[in-house]
């Protein structure tokens, strides 16, 4: 028989993964809800998931490839940017949705108990649908350019997992912080707009490695998604392997994710009181 113990002095250091697993169906239904709501009553429905990245790629190509004559070696620029965009879009959308998720679920949070972390976690799954569409787009483009995928593609899942951890790590931190400080609601859109320029989305990171000093590059790779996007390109297109410094990025991601869980756990206890 299940026994629940509510103790004011319980340790913050237990994450209670068993309970989380018990609520896995809630995780799926919340994801399903977000997915359904996103495309409900839109005329073009799923087509939107193609139109958005496609238009962005056209703009990128115009500005960076035509305008600035940015070289991407033997990789067609559109294909190059598409990989960066797929990673960045996943990261930024999951991060911002997860960040706002608790605030948006106030009604639920004040009326019923469930592990609150499920709310931001569920955002990662919905983002994967758009990511899959972006991948599909990349492979269509590859066929179009007669560009064969690199054998490194076996490593793609690894980088995908890192991308999920990165998006959730930041998102969970943001969701917990937003409960306390509404200021973060304003900061996130700004962070996203700003962050894209500090991420090798539209340009190769090699553009910077030769031109900025080492210390600046370290800061650059503190950006959790920077190294992951290098990794995406390497695994899909066979471009330069991730920079040594990119491994800082991976380390940051894992640390960020784990610490976000604990920080969230700490704030979780007072969510209903202050939300």
């Amino acid at each position, binding site marked *: 028989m299940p026994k629940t113990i*509510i103790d*004011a002095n319980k340790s913050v250091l237990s994450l209670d993964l068993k309970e989380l697993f018990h609520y896995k169906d809630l995780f799926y*239904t919340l994801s399903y809800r977000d997915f359904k709501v996103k495309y409900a009553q839109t005329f073009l429905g799923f087509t939107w998931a193609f139109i958005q990245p496609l238009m962005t790629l056209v703009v990128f190509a115009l500005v960076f490839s035509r305008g600035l004559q940015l070289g991407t070696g033997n990789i067609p620029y559109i294909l190059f940017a598409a990989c960066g965009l797929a990673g960045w879009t996943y990261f930024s959308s999951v991060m911002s949705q997860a960040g706002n998720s608790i605030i948006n679920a106030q009604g639920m949070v004040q009326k019923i108990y469930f592990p609150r972390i499920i709310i931001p976690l569920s955002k990662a799954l919905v983002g994967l649908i758009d990511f899959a569409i972006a991948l599909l787009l990349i492979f269509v483009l590859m066929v179009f350019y007669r560009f064969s995928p690199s054998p490194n593609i076996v490593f793609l899942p690894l980088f995908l997992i890192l991308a999920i951890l990165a998006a959730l790590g930041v998102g969970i931190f943001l969701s917990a912080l937003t409960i306390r400080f509404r200021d973060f609601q304003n900061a996130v859109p700004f962070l996203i707009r700003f962050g894209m320029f500090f991420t090798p989305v539209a340009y190769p990171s090699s553009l910077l490695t030769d031109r900025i000093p080492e210390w600046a590059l370290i800061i650059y790779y503190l950006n959790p998604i920077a190294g992951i996007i290098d990794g995406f390109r390497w695994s899909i297109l066979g471009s330069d392997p991730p920079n040594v410094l990119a491994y800082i990025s991976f380390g940051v991601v894992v640390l960020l994710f784990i610490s976000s869980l604990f920080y969230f756990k700490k704030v979780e206890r007072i969510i209903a009181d202050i939300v």
Partner: protein
Amino acid sequence: MSDIAISVENISKRYLIGDTSKGSVREAITSFFSENASSKKENFLALKDISFEVKKGEAVGIIGKNGAGKSTLLKILSRITEPSTGRIVIDGRVSSLLEVGTGFHPELTGRENIFLNGTILGMSRDEIKSKLDEIIEFSGVKRFIETPVKRYSSGMKVRLAFAVAAHLEPEILIIDEVLAVGDVEFQKKCLGKMADITGQGRTILFVSHNMSAVRRLCSKAIHLDDGQVVYTGDVEEAISNYLDTNDTYIESMGEIAWNVTAAPQSSEVKLIAARIRNNEEKVKTQFDTSEEITIEVDYQVKMPVRNMRIVLKVSTHEGILAFASTDHQTRETHTQEGFYRTTCKIPSYVLNKISYFIEVQFGIPGMKVLIPSVKLFDFEVENIYSSTGSYYPEKWPGIVAIPTEWATLEVTEQTLHPLNK
């Protein structure tokens, strides 16, 4: 294995008041640098060192006036918020219903919302799947189950939500005054289902202001006052204990009896009691459209007054005044000292199928207000007996639904345009 389902030991809950609880970064920074910035915050103890035990299979009511800590206790027991001190051990699978339909999303269909709400309540998808037909049947909205919930009437939404909640199979059920929402039919269904649950030996904790509901459901009750347990034990004892210490008034399903010291009064008049009933002297708060509704007000006139009048106001819950009425014309100019009972009868087939509330006010027109508006009751009008042809499954637009006479005649064109020819 012990027979204790819930054991609460020394639970306190402290809130910080004085701040808006919605922090801003600036506030955090200032309070970090100066100690006294946070001193404007005050501690408020919503629960003070509470301990009690609930045995398995017991149905326990939690009663107490507003602000006594009932909701806080409920929130702690349902793990929505954590206690500041103390420890609770709950033995068994718990479901708490502080609201029905938590998480309902308007864009999703009825069926999808059953899954969403069900999983929020802690059911697994398989469990919901196996009960799906039963839930849909119970809800009575089968025809609309593939329709987005935003197209539902509020009544349909509540029925669907309750259908999900009713199919939870917890060993321990914690319920807030969810019964306060919904139509009469729904309330009956809800109470019936809850009685079933107790019948099956489940443990129930029920928070309510509704003494008759507490009586009907619970064998024991806990009386909370000012964040402390003042009485635990037999339900009748607890209710009378509560009524004794209650310094405002007692409301129990359509009847108010004011406490001597807390009754609304002026130097001229003092309210004693009020009730709402049908023609058969049955006090209640749910009426059929075919019933006449009588409101009784008992009061004491402490010194002779001239031109006193009583005004009753009936409003919808959105705050729209449906109508007001006064006894001005029917009353003697002089009212002598003494005790009085004034009744006002609302004819049948006037009110709509919605819930209303009644206020009463005493005054001397053009001179002064003796007793400003006092809210008496919430009541609901339903169409339970649909013997006549005019049965509407949902409420009619408007705040009243008065009987009107309609007729259609077939006529010649000349009758309509006599000047054209």
